[in-house]
């Protein structure tokens, strides 16, 4: 018997046909759709006189453009409204399995609502016109981001033309130190293998640290696979996967449940299955992470300092550091804990779930944001997350601390709505990208965990959350 990786199993079970050179027609089970990357795909379909193949594979929502306050006023930005209206129209013409439009209680970030509704299941192929689709791999499925032409291709054929990636196992072993979260794990992984380290690979995260994470923590880790260049990240199915899914809206029910669970239990890599590349990290060596530059690989710990480009030998890397420091307005050798922040953003498909909000609340309870911090946005990942947080009273902890409690959406992770950084503003952010201009033209982003973002909001600068007490 060949020893197969989880990736092998997921791939093999979806091959419709394969050419001798490996070009494969891969069947797609779940297609997640949002308003930014789908209008041209639906338009292309119509222009070619084609119909969608299987709309009951589609779960759709509006998340990127939607405002996070004053919902009674609708979407005031006319260009944002055009995209959301286009999705509304397309969903009326081609009804999906589920559509959670703007202001629906189950609306939210596409990568939050899929899992929370049980629409992401083990063994599936999951695609979306969004690079953070890797999030769903936490459930033992093959999930990856696609472009708009591929969105149209999946709509029209329920398949993608693809070639298998190489496989990489990232093992993290041991107990995660106090104060460290899933976000610190994945930032440490990216710091190790680099922003291009996973290019051409599908990553399986394994080891006792990963198994020790909750499903939400695993989603955070898989979410940022693309920040290491990997289109897909995944974690094997275990008891936690199954416990999380039981009873969710679109999860199998009745006699189908035990049948599904029996199959899902096979979705693990065989012992000694070969990987093209393996990387090992020791959890004990991980400390709270903070990015200092304009790429997620430009990361250090809260105890670290901004690097000195003069000490870098590779000229391309040195110039990259120099440009990043100029953009970020940072001097070499500055202690990370001396960097002050103007704004704090808590949200995004990386860190906007209920456990993230509980962590933030546990840090800020009974405290207030520092006077020098202009704004702290807390943006839940979905309407359901928001309702849960309010049932637990977390919203009152946030507002008492001077934070703004907003409506769900992608918000300031990429600032397609009104939530943005102004030029030169510095932000501690729980999101996934610190690229130039990502959170607003000229904005300066430092990626951190929810605990570290909360601590920075309270102290006004980066601070070791382990010492905040």
């Amino acid at each position, binding site marked *: 018997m060949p020893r197969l990786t989880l990736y092998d199993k997921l791939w093999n079970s*979806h091959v*419709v*046909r394969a*050419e001798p*050179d490996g*070009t494969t*027609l891969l*069947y797609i089970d779940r297609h997640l759709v949002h308003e*930014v*990357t789908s209008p041209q795909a639906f*338009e292309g379909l119509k222009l*070619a006189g*084609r119909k969608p*193949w*299987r709309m009951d594979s589609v779960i759709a929502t509006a998340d*990127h453009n939607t405002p996070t306050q004053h919902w009674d006023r609708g979407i005031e930005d006319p*260009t*944002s409204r*055009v*995209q959301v209206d286009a999705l509304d129209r397309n969903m009326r013409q081609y009804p999906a399995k589920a559509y959670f439009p703007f202001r629906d209680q189950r609306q939210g970030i596409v990568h939050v609502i899929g899992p929370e509704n049980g629409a992401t*299941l083990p063994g*599936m192929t999951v695609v979306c016109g969004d*690079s953070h689709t890797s999030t769903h791999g936490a459930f033992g499925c093959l999930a990856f981001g*696609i*472009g*708009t*032409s*591929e969105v149209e*291709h999946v709509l*029209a*054929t*329920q*398949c993608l*033309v693809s*070639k298998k*990636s190489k496989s990489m196992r990232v093992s993290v072993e041991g107990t995660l130190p106090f104060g460290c979260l899933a976000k610190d794990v994945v930032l440490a992984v990216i710091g190790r293998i680099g*922003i*291009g380290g996973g*290019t*051409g690979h599908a990553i399986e995260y394994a080891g006792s640290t990963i198994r020790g994470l909750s499903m939400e923590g695993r989603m955070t880790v898989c979410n940022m696979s*693309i*920040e290491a*260049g990997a*289109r897909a990240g995944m974690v094997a199915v275990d008891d936690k996967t199954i416990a999380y899914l039981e009873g969710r809206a679109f*999860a199998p029910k009745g006699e189908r449940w035990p049948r*599904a669970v029996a*199959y899902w239990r096979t979705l693990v890599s065989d012992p000694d299955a070969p990987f093209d590349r393996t990387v090992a990290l020791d959890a004990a060596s991980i400390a709270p992470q903070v990015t200092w530059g304009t*790429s997620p690989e430009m990361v250090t710990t809260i105890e670290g300092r901004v690097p000195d480009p003069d000490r870098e030998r590779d000229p391309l890397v040195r110039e*990259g550091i120099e*440009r990043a420091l100029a953009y970020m307005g940072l001097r070499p050798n500055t202690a990370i804990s001396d960097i002050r922040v103007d704004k704090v953003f808590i949200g995004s498909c990386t860190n906007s779930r209920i456990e993230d909000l509980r962590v933030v609340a546990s840090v800020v309870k009974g405290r207030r944001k520092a006077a020098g911090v202009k704004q702290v946005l807390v943006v839940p990942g979905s309407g359901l997350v928001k309702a849960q947080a309010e049932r637990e009273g977390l919203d009152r902890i946030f507002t008492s601390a001077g934070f703004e409690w907003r409506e769900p959406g992608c918000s300031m992770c990429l*600032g*397609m709505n009104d939530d943005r950084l102004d*030029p030169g503003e510095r932000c501690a952010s729980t999101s996934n*990208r610190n*690229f*130039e*201009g*990502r959170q607003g*033209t*000229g904005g300066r982003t430092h990626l951190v965990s929810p605990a570290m973002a909360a601590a920075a909001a309270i102290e006004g600068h980066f601070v070791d959350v382990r010492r905040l007490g």
Partner: protein
Amino acid sequence: MQPFRLLTGVVAPLDRANVDTDVIIPKQFLKSINRSGFGPNLFDGWRYLDRGEPGVDPATRRENPDFVLNQARYRGAQILLARRNFGCGSSREHAPWALLDYGFRALIAPSFGDILASNSLKNGLLPIVLTEAEVDRLFHACVATPGFSLTVDLERQTVATADGSQLFAFDIDAFRKHCLLNGLDEIGLTLQHADEIRAFEARHLAEQPWLV
């Protein structure tokens, strides 16, 4: 899709590693529901000194004279020479749409973000991978030679300098090459296998009925 066979064009050197798709086309320009019109905002944050917003007439913008694409010698370039991991990050197909709309037909780099490479191929924009050393040589030649141009021959899978003194071979997936050479509609090709897809689907959904 516009076929790609033979291209001779001026080369513009973008000497930075890890250029992400947020930089190639910033988010405020993703609100269009069309596939064209993104060219004026390609590399918007680097190309202009003023802040770019949708709907602003490009003629009124203040160009950044230091940005490579604004230098007279690189105007009209059709080949973009870049460093490793070009086009990492977001899956936005608006990035290749913007590169094409600007006038680029081919990209040369030591490596590309997976999604950008895939999106480019589907739009007739050819991403060519050469080694770090080859790309380095091209950067030196490009900067040293005003009007430096290259000829890309997709059929033969080669990149050549105008005087023929340097010739580089590149790899490309046979299926992608076939689609590019002939400007084929990939959906049409896939639908030729519709019966196989239906047969697979029937079996697959019977085995896992919870997928519906």
